[in-house]
C-alpha cells in the first residue's frame, strides 16, 4: 500500500484548511462536547467522526471546526468529560499549535449537584462548583456546599 493511501485511510474525517481539530474525545461524550461548546448553534462548517479506534480510550470521537479558534476558558469547559482531549490549531492545512485541556477552577452550568436536597435540583438554577481536587475530581457546590466526587459527577 502506498504511503498516500495509508494516509487517506487513516484520515477518516476530511481535513480542514483553517480551524481547530478536537481529538481524543470519549465517544460517548461527543454530543455533550458539541453542546457544551455551543457547536450546535454556530454557522461554521463542522465535521465529526465517532466510534473511531483509539488505543487510549478504546473508542474516541473527533471534531473539526472550520474557522474557529477557541479561547482557553471556552475549551476548558470540556475538561470534566474529555480530560484527555487534544486540540490542533490548523492554518493552511498545517498544524501550527497543539493544546491540551486543563481543569478550570470553577465549573458553571455543566454538572449536576449529586445532593437531591440541593436547591439547584429543585429550582431552575445554573449550577456552580469550585474544583477542590483533581484526582479524583472533587467539586464543591456553591449552594449546598456538598462535594460531588468522581463517579457521582453527572452532566446537567
Amino acid at each position, binding site marked *: 500500500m502506498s504511503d498516500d493511501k495509508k494516509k487517506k485511510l487513516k484520515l477518516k474525517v476530511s481535513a480542514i484548511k483553517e480551524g481547530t481539530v478536537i481529538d481524543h474525545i470519549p465517544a460517548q461524550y461527543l454530543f455533550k462536547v458539541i453542546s457544551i461548546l455551543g457547536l450546535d448553534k454556530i454557522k461554521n462548517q463542522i465535521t465529526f467522526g465517532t466510534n473511531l479506534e483509539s488505543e487510549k480510550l478504546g473508542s474516541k470521537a473527533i471534531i473539526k471546526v472550520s474557522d474557529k479558534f477557541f479561547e482557553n476558558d471556552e475549551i476548558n469547559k470540556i475538561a470534566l468529560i474529555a480530560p484527555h482531549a487534544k486540540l490542533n490549531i490548523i492554518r493552511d492545512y498545517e498544524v501550527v499549535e497543539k493544546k491540551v485541556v486543563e481543569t478550570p477552577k470553577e465549573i458553571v452550568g455543566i454538572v449536576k*449537584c449529586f*445532593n437531591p*436536597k440541593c*436547591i439547584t435540583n429543585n*429550582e431552575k438554577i445554573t449550577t456552580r462548583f469550585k474544583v477542590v481536587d483533581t484526582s479524583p475530581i472533587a467539586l464543591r*457546590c456553591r*449552594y449546598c456546599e456538598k462535594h460531588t466526587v468522581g463517579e457521582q459527577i453527572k452532566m446537567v
Partner: protein
Amino acid sequence: MKRDLISITDYSKEEYLRIMSLAAEFEASPNQDLLQGKVVASLFFEPSTRTRLSFETAISRLGGRIIGIADPGSSSTSKGETLHDTIKMVSNYADLIVMRHPLEGAARYAAEVSPVPVINAGDGANQHPTQTLLDMYSIVKTQGSLDNLNIFMVGDLKYGRTVHSLLMAMSEFENPIFNFIAPPELQMPQEYKLYLREKGIRFFEHREFTDIISEADIIYMTRVQKERFSDPIEYEQVKNVYILRNAMLEKTKPNVKILHPLPRVNEIHTDVDQNEKAYYFTQARNGVFTREAIISHIMNLK
C-alpha cells in the same frame, strides 16, 4: 456592597470577635431602637418556632417591624411559587430578610436574588451560622476566651450541622482540642477530620460516653434528628445511644459547661437541669443578644 450571613465561613476571625463584643453590649442593654422605621421579613419555609421566636425577639428589641411567613402551608409557596419569585417580591418590601428553608443552598441562592441582605436561619442540613455564633458567645462568656479549649461533641456528629459549623469556627482560634463521641453510624464525616488534620488540630474519636468527659471545658450535646435519616430503622437503632445524666458530671472540671442547640428529646436527662454546669437554657437566651449583634453588624447600625 451588601453583607449577608449565609455560611459560618463567610466571616473572618475578626468578625467573629466583633459579633462577640457586640453581643456583650446588647446583653448589657438589650433594648436599643436601632432598627426603628425598618421592616424585616422573617421567612420560615419550614417551621422552627424556637429560631423564629429568637430572631423576632431580637428584631423587636431593636425596634424593627416584622412581616413574614411562619407557616409554610399558608404561603404562596404552597401554590407553587418559586423561591426566586418569593424573594424578588419580599425584597421589594423589606430592608432585611431572615430565612429558614428545608433545601440546602436555598439561602445562598436567595442572597444572590435579593438586593437586600439575607441572614440564613438554617438551610436544610447545610448551615445555621447564627446558631454557631451564639454557641461561640456562650463559650466565650463562660470560659473567658475562645483559645485553648477542650471541646467534646456528643451524639449525631454525622448529620448535626451545628457541630460541623462550630468545629470550623473554633478552628480559627488558638490550640483547640476536639473529642468526638458518636456511634459508628453517626461519626464525624471524613471531610471535617481532614480539615482538622490539614490545620494540625488535635482530635480524638470515642465510642463510649464515659469519664473521659472529665477533661472537657465544653460538652456539646446534640439531638439525633429523625428527619435527617432516610432509613427509619437506622434512626431507631441510634436514637437512645448517648444520654447525659447528672451522676456523670461528678468528676468533670469546675468550669465545664453543657451546651445543646435545643430542642432536646432525652439525650440530656432532666436531672442535669439543676446542675450549675447545665447551660443550654442560658445559651438560648444568649441567642437573642447574638442575633441583635448580627443584625446590627449586617445593617451597619453599630
